[in-house]
């Protein structure tokens, strides 16, 4: 029996015929950039510590080496205050960007975002409830727990409603996401308006704007497992994500277990986004802008895009948070404001440019 096979004469392979890997060298470059960014962000602050001192103190801290008496204060600043905050920024950025990339692939829309399916707003409602009810007063862990619960419930709800008749239609999923966002958003407003205490509503409002003020090792430890759990299936599913972009039926005809892949993507993107909201509140534009930028640099292939967006998201948020800390000497800006101010114009620029190239060549 016959089978499609091309003529037996073998064509010479051009160097460009390598399908993806010609840009893979950029991944270690992003890795190095991230490490450098973390070191710089740890050195800078109200007290600026020379970079070599910072690096030395970080190394000492890493290997738990003894530190001289007069450097103890600096070591405390570097190791107990700044480093966990910078790492929290990196983890939140990585989570948001990776979740955004997965959602954009899942929804086959480069403008889709993890926030779209209502996970972020569900998390925000959980957090707002926890603050206003006084539940979050007990321990610094309780607020993240509440937001994470909200995010998971929201994701579960979206899936339950969207996946009714055997399969998950993407249009359904998006529409349910819109409904979820509306519900969670108005409930959050309700919680905010019902809060009797001005201090409490101010606290909720500040947290909703997003920030990393006072985030310590506890928060880093809390978010770290989720990032790791979210990472693994992401890389495992990169080929599925690529093929899903051709449409679900084509993906199915190429041997992809589409329902399985979609479910995994949904759950793990929700985990990542939920964990990020738990730590830092709602920070917009990271999950939208970073994958966009990375797609322009690395191309749309998820085998490079997923690690690229993860590293890029971490770098982006480390610098945004540094800017939030540094721009006004005695004050601290909200991180969500910074990412929106940086992200929104950049996003519009990318959008317009993409639109133009598409129209010119059409």
């Amino acid at each position, binding site marked *: *029996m*016959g*089978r*499609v*096979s*091309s*003529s037996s004469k*073998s*064509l010479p*392979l051009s160097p*460009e*015929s*390598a*399908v*993806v*890997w010609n840009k893979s060298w950029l991944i270690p470059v992003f890795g190095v950039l991230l490490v450098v960014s973390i070191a710089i962000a740890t050195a800078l602050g109200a007290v600026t510590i020379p970079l070599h001192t910072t690096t030395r103190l970080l190394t000492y801290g890493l290997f738990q080496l003894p530190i001289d008496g007069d450097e103890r204060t600096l070591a405390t600043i570097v190791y107990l205050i700044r480093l966990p905050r910078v790492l929290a920024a990196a983890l939140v950025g990585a989570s948001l960007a990776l979740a955004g990339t997965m959602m954009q692939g899942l929804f*086959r*829309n*480069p403008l889709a975002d993890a926030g779209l399916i209502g996970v972020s707003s569900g998390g925000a409602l959980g957090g707002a409830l926890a603050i206003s009810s006084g539940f979050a007063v007990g321990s610094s862990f309780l607020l993240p727990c509440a937001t994470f619960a909200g995010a998971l419930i929201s994701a579960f709800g979206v899936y339950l409603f969207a996946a009714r008749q055997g399969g998950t239609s993407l249009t359904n999923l998006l529409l349910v996401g819109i409904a979820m966002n509306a519900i969670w958003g108005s409930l959050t407003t309700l919680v905010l308006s019902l809060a009797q205490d001005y201090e409490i509503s101010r606290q909720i409002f500040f947290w909703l704007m997003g920030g990393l003020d006072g985030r310590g090792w506890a928060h880093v430890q809390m978010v770290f497992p989720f990032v790791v759990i979210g990472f693994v299936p992401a890389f*495992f599913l990169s*080929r599925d994500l*690529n*093929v899903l*972009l*051709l*449409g*679900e*039926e*084509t993906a*199915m*005809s*190429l*041997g*992809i*277990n589409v329902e399985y892949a979609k479910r995994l993507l949904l759950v793990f993107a929700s985990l990542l986004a939920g964990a990020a909201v738990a730590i830092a509140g709602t920070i917009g534009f990271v999950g939208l802008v970073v994958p966009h930028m990375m*797609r322009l640099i690395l*191309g*749309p*292939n998820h085998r490079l895009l997923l690690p690229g967006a993860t590293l890029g998201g971490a770098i982006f948020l480390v610098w945004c948070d540094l800017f939030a800390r540094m721009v006004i000497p005695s004050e601290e800006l909200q991180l969500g404001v910074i990412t929106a101010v940086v992200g929104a114009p950049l996003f519009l620029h990318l959008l317009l440019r993409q639109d133009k*190239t*598409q129209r010119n*060549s*059409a």
Partner: protein
Amino acid sequence: MTDLAFSLDQVRYTPDHTLILADVSLDVSHGHWIGILGPNGAGKSTLLRIMAGVLPASSGIILFEGQALEQWSTRERAKQLAFLPQRTDLSFPFRVREVVAMGRTPYLERWQNESEADERIVEQTMALTEISRLADRNVLTLSGGEFQQVMLARALAQQPTFLLLDEPTTGLDLRHQFEVVDVLTTLVQQGVTIITVLHDLNMAASACASVVLLKSGRVYAAGPPQDILTVEAIRAVYGVDVALGENPETGALQIIPLRATRPTG
């Protein structure tokens, strides 16, 4: 191994109690080009998608290579059978060769990269479908017809024994239509079984060994085109009066549409 590629028995598709396909029974033997014909909404694409295994039938039995279609693992099936939907919406800036390489998916493990052999197959498929000059173009910058050719190349890169194509020539200019038909004819001669949804009756008459004429979700008639595409059948199914002739060069059946009329039968 049976001698039937597909055997459909009483296949129905009735989502939400709407009758899309009713009791379709059909046998497809190996190594032929079968055309699925019929007016808009007759269920052509639905039938093709059900045969490709990307849409579950509501009831009925579909045997593919003598084995129930749903018992095939999606991956093993993907090595045998390639499916090209009517349209593909891709909004990400992949290069043409990357999209064609996606046809290699069923042959690759999750962690595996395309081997040199895979890349060679991609190159050869692009050469076969005459899109080599587009290899490094961003697919978002292609014309509709060029994109359609890329998608065909993607299906061919799967190296299937069975090729299920939904209107593979729609949107292509005359020359490219001929090229696609030539490529598919060559494949049939090599033993590949091809099933296409077609709108062009003349193309079906000249290229297909047999045609399946669908009307309102039922098989109106099936068999060799010269037996099936009669004036009466076309009037009954399409609601169009035609004159039949003969292609002066190939001798194939030639259908000349005259005027719209009311479907009969």
